C-alpha cells in the first residue's frame, strides 16, 4: 500500500503527517510505503491514499484514490481517527 501526504511545498506539514502516519503504522504493526509530496507533483501519481489539509480541498487535483482532508495536520489524534479505518479496510 502506498500513502502519500501532501502540502503546498512537500516538506513542511506533509512531512510531519508522514511521520505521524509512520508512527501509527508501527503501533498497529502494519506495513505501508509513505511519502511526503508537494501539491504540484500529485497529479498522475499512483497511490492508494492521499492525506492533505482541509485548506487544499478547493485546489486539490483529481486523483484516482481516496483523499483524506485533515482540519489540523499536526493533531495526531485526528490523523489516527481518519486514517486507521482506511488501514483496516
Amino acid at each position, binding site marked *: 500500500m502506498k500513502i502519500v501526504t501532501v502540502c*503546498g*511545498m512537500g516538506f*513542511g*506539514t506533509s*512531512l*510531519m503527517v*508522514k511521520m505521524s502516519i509512520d508512527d501509527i503504522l508501527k503501533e498497529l504493526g502494519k506495513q505501508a510505503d509513505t511519502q511526503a509530496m508537494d501539491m*504540484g507533483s500529485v497529479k498522475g501519481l499512483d497511490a492508494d491514499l492521499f492525506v492533505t489539509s482541509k*485548506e487544499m480541498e478547493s485546489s486539490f487535483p483529481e486523483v484516482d484514490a481516496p483523499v483524506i482532508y485533515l482540519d489540523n*495536520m499536526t493533531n495526531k489524534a485526528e490523523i489516527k481517527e481518519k486514517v486507521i479505518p482506511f488501514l483496516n479496510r
Partner: protein
Amino acid sequence: MLDFLIQLITTPAVMLGLVALVGLLIQRKNAADVTKGTLKTILGVLILTAGSGVIVQYLEPFATIFTQGFQLTGVVPFDEAVIGALSEKVPEIARNGSLILALGFVTNIILARFSPYKYIFLTGHMLWIMSGALAWAFYDLGYSTVQAVLWGSMIQGLACVLFPALAQPIMRKITGSSEIGYGHFTTAGVVLSAGVGKLVGNPKKSSEDMKMPKSLEFFKDTAVSISFVMVLIYLISVLMAGPEFMKTISNGQNWIVFAIVQGLGFTAGVLILLQGVRMFLGEIVPAFRGIAQKLVPGATPALDCPVVFAFAPNALIIGFLSSIVGMVIGMLVSRTFGEIVPLPSIIGGFFTGGIAGIFGNALGGRRGAIVSGVIYGLVLTIPVALFFPLYGLETYGVTGIALLLSDALIVLSGVKLLDSLHILPIAVPLAIVAVIALGWIRPNKKQGKSESV
C-alpha cells in the same frame, strides 16, 4: 587515507548523508531504508546545489542590467546563493561550515537535553546557512580552524534553541499547542514585525474570518508567484536600461523576450532548488527525529515556515503581498543612504513575509497582519543595505547577492562585536553555561510542556 576521509566527511552533501545514516541506524531501520535514506539525502543536497547554480546564472546579467538601469548597485538578497558562492570560492569556509553544522547539531541536542529550551532545530537549509555564515565570519576575522569550529558550533547550538524559544509564545497562539516550534533564522525579524502589528491591530478581527478572492489563490503556487514577480522585475529593469544597452547583454535577442526568459529561468532555478530541499528534508528530518527521540525526551521539533501555513492561509497571502509593498518602500529608503539597493526577495516575501502575516494576525488580527507584513518588508531590505558593507563579500569575488536572514545578521554582528571587545572566548562558553543553568534555577517551570503532553 586520512586526507581521503577528511575530504569525504567534509563534503556537505556526504556529511549530511552520514547524519541521516546515523539517525536511521539508531532507529534500527532495515538495510533498504537506510541505503535509500542516506543516498536520497546526499542527492537532495547535490540537486539543491545545482539549483543555486542555475539561480546565480540567471542573476548575473540581471545585476549588470539593474546597475545600468537605475545607476545603482542592486543586490539580490539570497542566503543560499551567498553561502554556496563563498563555499565554492574558499574551501576552508566550506569545510569549517560543515564541521560547525555537525557539531552545532550536537550542541543543540546537549542544550535541549539539559536546558529548559527543549527545541531541536530541524530546518536543514537554515542550519546550513547559519553554519556557513559563522564559518565565513571566523574566516574573515582570521581565526584558526580549531577556534572557528569550536566557537562556531557553540554559537550555532545556542541559536538553535534561543530563536525558537523567542517565537514559541506566538507559535502556541497559532497552533493551539506546543507540539511544533518555528525553526527558521528569520525569527527576530518576524517577531519584531508581529510586535508592531500587535500595537495597531485587534486580535479579535482575524484575517481567517474573511474570504480571500479566489483569483488570488493561485499565488499559493510558488512557481506562479515567483514567475510573476520576477518577470515583472526583469521587465522593469530591462526597460530602464534601454534597448540599446540590452543588445550588448542579450546577444541580439529581443529585450522583452530576454526579460521573460530570464525571469522564468530564475524561477526554474528556484524550482530545482526546492526539489532538492524537498528530497533532502524528506529524508533527513525523519532521521534527525530518530536521534532526537532517543536522546532528548519531550523535545519540540523546530520546523520550517510551511508547517504554519495551514493555520492561517489568508494571513499568509496578506503577509506575502504586504511584505512586497514593504520591500519596495525599503528599496526607496535604502537608495537615500547608500549605493547598495537590496532588490525585493520574492522567496523571502512568500515564505517569511507570509509568516510575518500569520504571526501578525495572531497578535493583531487582519490589521496586524498587514502592518506586520509591511514592517517585515522593511526588515528584509534596510538591514541588508546597512550590514552589506560590513562583510565585504566583494573581496571574495562574490557580487550581486547579499545575506538576508535577520537572525544571521544579528549573530554575525554579535561575533564581530565580541571579537572587537576581545571577549569572544569568554562570552560564548559563558552563554552556554547560563542557558543550561536556567534549567537548574527554575526546575519547576517547564515552558509550555504541560500543554503539549
